């Protein structure tokens, strides 16, 4: 089994590597995509400078914590979209019968299909996360925790994208539901939870896993909490297992459209 995992990991890394090489053929476009995405994200600092000029703390977050929130949200998004880009268009792959080429490969179908392409601009998000981490004051422990939570967060948002995309196995086109769900996660994760009250706040910290991907990591990086870290790890593992089970259940209902495509 371990050999199988090793082989799968090897294939995944090679797929990403070749995807990156393919995108780097046009160097100007590649560099522009990365740099402009960093600048694009950086513009939001202005928003928070204006808001913090009006009030000293927003939703219980200091300016540094807001920077951390943005850093973790950006790197989580970056990791997920860079490595698992196709998880965000899974609905299209399913409804248009484009999974055929992945079914014939002797590898995990889900991993093969979601890692088949990379999003260059997401590299800018990822780098931006680390740049902001440095600005907010980096330490070795903070760096390790940040990287760890960026990975768990990326896995969680990819799981959600796959689950929402997999709805297409049962209800046909689910791309609008998936897009809405994914946007919901991104939008909420860049605002402090303290500004929301009542049911909205409870939902954010429970049902909608923004707490796991953004709020809890910031709390832990501010003041380490083992219990909360453990909760994040356990839920990430459970959610990933559930995602695989649901996807493979849905795959039984998949029907090919005899689409001829070339994969280079």
């Amino acid at each position, binding site marked *: 089994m371990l050999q199988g995992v090793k082989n799968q990991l090897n294939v995944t890394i090679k797929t990403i590597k070749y995807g990156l090489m393919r995108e780097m053929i046009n160097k100007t476009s590649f560099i522009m995509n990365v740099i402009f995405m960093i*600048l694009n994200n950086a513009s939001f600092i202005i928003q928070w400078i*204006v*808001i913090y000029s009006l009030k000293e703390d927003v939703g219980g977050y200091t300016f540094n914590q807001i920077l951390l929130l943005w850093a973790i949200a950006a790197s989580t998004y970056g990791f997920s979209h860079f490595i698992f880009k196709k998880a965000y268009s899974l609905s299209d792959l399913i409804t248009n019968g484009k999974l055929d080429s992945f079914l014939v490969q002797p590898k995990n179908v889900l991993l093969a299909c979601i890692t088949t392409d990379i999003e260059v601009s997401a590299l800018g998000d990822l780098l931006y996360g680390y740049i902001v981490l440095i600005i907010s004051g980096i330490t070795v422990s903070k760096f390790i925790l940040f990287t760890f939570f960026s990975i768990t967060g990326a896995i969680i948002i990819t799981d959600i994208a796959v689950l929402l995309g997999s709805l297409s196995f049962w209800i046909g086109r689910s791309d609008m*539901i998936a897009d809405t769900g994914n946007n919901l996660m991104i*939008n909420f994760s860049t605002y402090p939870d303290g*500004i*929301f*009250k009542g049911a*909205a706040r409870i939902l954010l910290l429970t049902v909608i896993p923004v707490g796991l991907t953004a709020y809890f990591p910031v709390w832990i990086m501010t003041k380490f909490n083992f219990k909360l870290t453990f909760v994040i790890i356990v839920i990430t593992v459970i959610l990933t297992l559930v995602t695989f089970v649901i996807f493979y259940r849905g795959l039984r209902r998949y029907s090919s459209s005899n689409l001829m495509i070339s994969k280079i």
Partner: protein
Amino acid sequence: MRKYIYIYKSELMSTFQYVINILFRLINFILFIFIFMNLWNYIYDNPNELINGYSKTQMIWYVIITEIIWGAIEGRKYCRKIVDDVRGGNIAYMINKPYSYIGYAVSGHLGETTIRIIISMVVGFTMGIIFLKSFPALTAPAVIIVFISGILAVLINLLLITFIGLISFIIEDSNPIFWLYSKMILVLGVLFPIEYFPGILAKIMRYSPIYVTCYGPAKLFVDFSYMSSAEILLSQIIYLGIAWGMCYLIYKKGVKKLNVTGG
């Protein structure tokens, strides 16, 4: 002009077929307004407090109006379409058609935008009235002026995005330039009025697209005066001419380049 009205009508009718898509996208709009209602509720300790000349109610109405104008355009999708037309060579098939590509692209996208604006207005105004329990006191002529200013804001935005898309004639992919433009509009225009920024920056912003595409119509909506409406409408008309001129020049130059490379 009649052919562009026909293109506009065709896109309008075609968009009607996908109203469900628009309704789904509306969730993002509702979410955006919901977040900012919460944010401004948190920032304003007292509902009657004035920050930079704006009350809490005015600030939330400001964001609702700017988001209706900016969000309904779906600039990212529009810019990508223009970039794809240029990069993919699709634009070559439109050169020999009896219409201008700029007019075709703008009028077509305006058709889609119209439906989104109407639905966003219904939802935005309903949210505002329910949660704020108030509506700015506007007279009938003021409503007409705000409406005209809103239409001009949409047109200027579409032309500026068309210009950014057409930059693909020069650099291969101008989408990243749009990201910067969109964030500039969002952060400096949609979220805050110009008065929130320090002196020099505020002065610069009065000459930037932010003033004519976001601030102008929203300011008139929350704090109408005939003096400021004359100033805003005049600026919008000047900007409309400049934006159209920029599109025309870059298209003219780009098409020549396209001919040289053989399309």
